[in-house]
């Protein structure tokens, strides 16, 4: 897992709880490097540990942690790479994750571990996305998806469910709200 995820997580923790909290988190989480540079690459197990540790410390379930992180990451991406979000909408953006977003990521970071989405469009107001990833962090994706819809001001209903035990496959349905 790319370092940017870790530094992002650090940022989120620091922003929400201050550095002391973060410091303590780093001290108390086991099997971690402790120092992360955004251009580095670290084992995703460290992220799992950090999330678990943070979840313990805050009492938030790890799924919620990931969802919150996803929302934080969206903001980070928006600030860092605003061009991707121009002239788009929720469906357009989400349907282009594989081809437009992730391909650009791979250009910079050829060894990035990214989830794969099986996307199906049903007209202009419904789409389904199957999440596939060995990191099993579909809640992170949920957070990103929610933030996307918020950003584009699209009133949508988002359904999210696991498709297997370990969460490496998950199902998302994004439906436009009918008012």
């Amino acid at each position, binding site marked *: 897992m790319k370092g940017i995820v870790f530094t992002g997580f650090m940022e989120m923790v620091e922003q929400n709880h201050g*550095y002391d909290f973060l*410091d303590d988190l*780093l001290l108390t989480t086991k099997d971690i490097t402790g*120092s*992360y540079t955004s*251009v*580095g690459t670290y084992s995703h197990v460290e992220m799992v540990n950090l999330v678990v540790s943070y979840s313990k410390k805050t009492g938030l379930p790890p799924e919620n942690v990931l969802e919150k992180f996803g929302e934080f990451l969206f903001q980070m991406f928006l600030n860092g790479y605003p061009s991707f979000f121009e002239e788009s909408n929720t469906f357009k953006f989400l349907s282009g994750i594989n081809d437009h977003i992730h391909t650009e990521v791979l250009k910079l970071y050829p060894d990035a571990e990214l989830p794969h989405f099986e996307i199906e469009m049903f007209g202009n107001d419904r789409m389904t996305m199957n999440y596939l990833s060995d990191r099993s962090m579909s809640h992170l994706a949920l957070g990103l998806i929610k933030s996307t819809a918020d950003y584009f001001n699209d009133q949508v209903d988002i359904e999210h469910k696991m498709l297997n035990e370990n969460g490496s496959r998950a199902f998302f349905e994004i439906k436009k709200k009918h008012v």
Partner: protein
Amino acid sequence: MDLGRFLRLRKSMSDVNVLYRRIERERKARIEAEQLLEQKSRELFISNEELKRSNKELEQKSKRLSKALESIEMEYERMIQDLREIVFKINPDGLFTYINNATTSITDFSPNELIGRHFTELLTPESREEISDFYLDQIKQKEVHSYLQIPVLAKNKKVIWFGQSVTFTFNADGELIEGIAVARDITDVVKARQAISDSEEKYRGLIEGMELGILEVDNNGNIVKAYPWFCDMVGYSEDELLGKNASNTLLFPEDASMMKSNDLERKKGQTGVYEIRIRHKNGGIIWVAISAAPYTNAKGEIVGSIGVHLDITEQKSLVKKLETANAETQRARESEHNFFMNLSHEIRTPMNAVIGMSHLLSKTDLDPLQKSYLDDLMFSSNVLRGLISNILDFSRLERGDYPIQVKKFNLNRWFNETLSMFKYLIDEKSLNLIVTSEFPDWAMLESDSNILTQILLNLVGNATKYTEEGSVSVSLKAMSKPKGVQLIVTDTGVGISRKQISKIFDRFYQIDNSNSKGYGLGLSITKQLCDVLGSDIDISSELGHGTQVKVVFPLSIHSEKVVSDEFNSIEFKAELNVLLVEDNPMNQSYILALLADWGLKSVLAENLKEAQLAMTKEVFDLILLDMQLPDGSGIELAQYVREKKISSAIVAVTATSINESINREYLDCIDGIVSKPFVPSELLNEIGKQLPQLLKHDDSIKPSEDHEFVAMMVETFIQECPKLIDDLLKAVNAGDSKLALRELHKLPNMLHLINRWEFAIRVKELESKVLNQTELNNGELVNLIEELEALFVELKSHKPND
């Protein structure tokens, strides 16, 4: 220190620691980042270097390829320019973007003049729309390749035909990018094709116009094409004929086999012409002459045959009519011939009688004047016989089976004797007859004297007929080239015009019909007779001045039908000596001359005594014995010869008629009899009969005179015999000795004439008996009659067919 300060201090220290850890973490992260950066930089540098190297390589490669491409392009450019074909490119708007130099030499437009112009500008005005549409359609269909023949206007306004191949290039969206074309000048090809097409049209027109009746069939005999004239001829339309089997549809069944065999010829590649019947649609018959030939495809395989059918129905019927007419003519000729043949018998019989009687008369005692008259009579009657024979044989001449009797005879003697006939005629008309001959008196001619006589008589007869005053000259000249005798008959008569001369030898052509002096056969026969002898005849004449006829006879002729007169061509092997016992001086010289003529040695004795004397000196092969001698009868000598067993043959030459009774016993002593007067051949014949072993010829001599004479006599005998037998029978039955005598009296002459000597003598004896007896001895008479009948049958069966 208070707690607050302590806590504040501990907090500060803790804060410092936190800060310290933060800084530491940050430092670590920074170092890591820097390391990563370095690594990345190194990687980048290496990549760069790699890239630079690659680039350089590519550049060089590119340069090389560029150069190669350049030279290839130049090569192509040169090739294209050198091409005799025009190569060009057009853009999607149809404008020329490139065109090679070939265009200059072919159309006189240079590339520069054409680039930027629209391609339709070069086409002939009338073709622009059609061609433009074609290519637009090609483009719409996205057809990459196309070939079209287009007419182009050269600068000099001449039309040049091009065969143009165009390749269109389309981009990914299916839009035309450009067109590349190669155009070849095919004007010659187009012209040639046009000429061929025109020629085909011309010949098609010719063939269809000609009345040739052309039919084409395939290898199975089924009709592939029927030309209009053929259809007209057979009454079917082409549609009715196509696909049908020619033989089954058009031929009569019985002719089919002929067609089959001809078909086989055709399949072998032979041409042929034949006649056959064709069935018209309405069932009628059409005769055609078919000229057929096989015809082959481009590979040379026989794919069928073509026949030209010429309607010859007309000709066929004409031919049939001609055949019928011919047959009729032939029949007419046949009946004419038969008529002549029949006629000949009717005429010959009395003729033969005349000759026979003259002959017999000649053997009686005549005084010199009578003899002279008789000679002329005999000669003329012979000639008459010959004439009749020849005229009646005209039929045979026409047929071409004219018999020739070749013998040697004295030329001048024949000549003069024949011409003597005209003495009277000429005297009557007070003309001059001039007879000349270049030949010596001993000259012999080997030919058919009858035919020659006929020719001579005819020519001199004509000359005399048509000459009223002046002369007729007849001459014999010797010719060296070719060797022969030329007979020239010249008259000072009326002459013949040039026009008439050409027809003069035509049968029945007569110059002067009003006078009608002849039957018109004369010259025609003469010419044919000349042909038979292998002689040339030539007439020259001038109206009012006279005529000259020339005939050339070969000195000797050989004919398959030569019936040689054996008796005049006898030759004796050795020199024979003959004792002539004769007291009459005239007879002496006559016989001695004959003997000399025949190459026989002779000794003369005038009486018995001299004869006996002579016989003591030598042995004679033959004794010619006159019966009445001064000192006795010839019989005495004969008896003497027999007693003395002298081996000579004895021939009695007697003046007495056979009717006188010669004692039988005397007959034993002599070998043969010749009665005076005799013709030389009679004597010769007898001599030959007596001395056959000495003859050069192996054939035994037939006891007869010249064949024709004998034939005539036999003819006469056969005709007279039946009546005679009848009358004799009557006499026997009636016991009429007078009648018997009368008939018996006729017999010996007749028998003599046909050389039945012995029979004749017996008849004479019987005649004497009947004369002396008062009553008839039937037995002997009946025997005689039977013998007569037998003879009659014998002669009839040996008679050659006429």
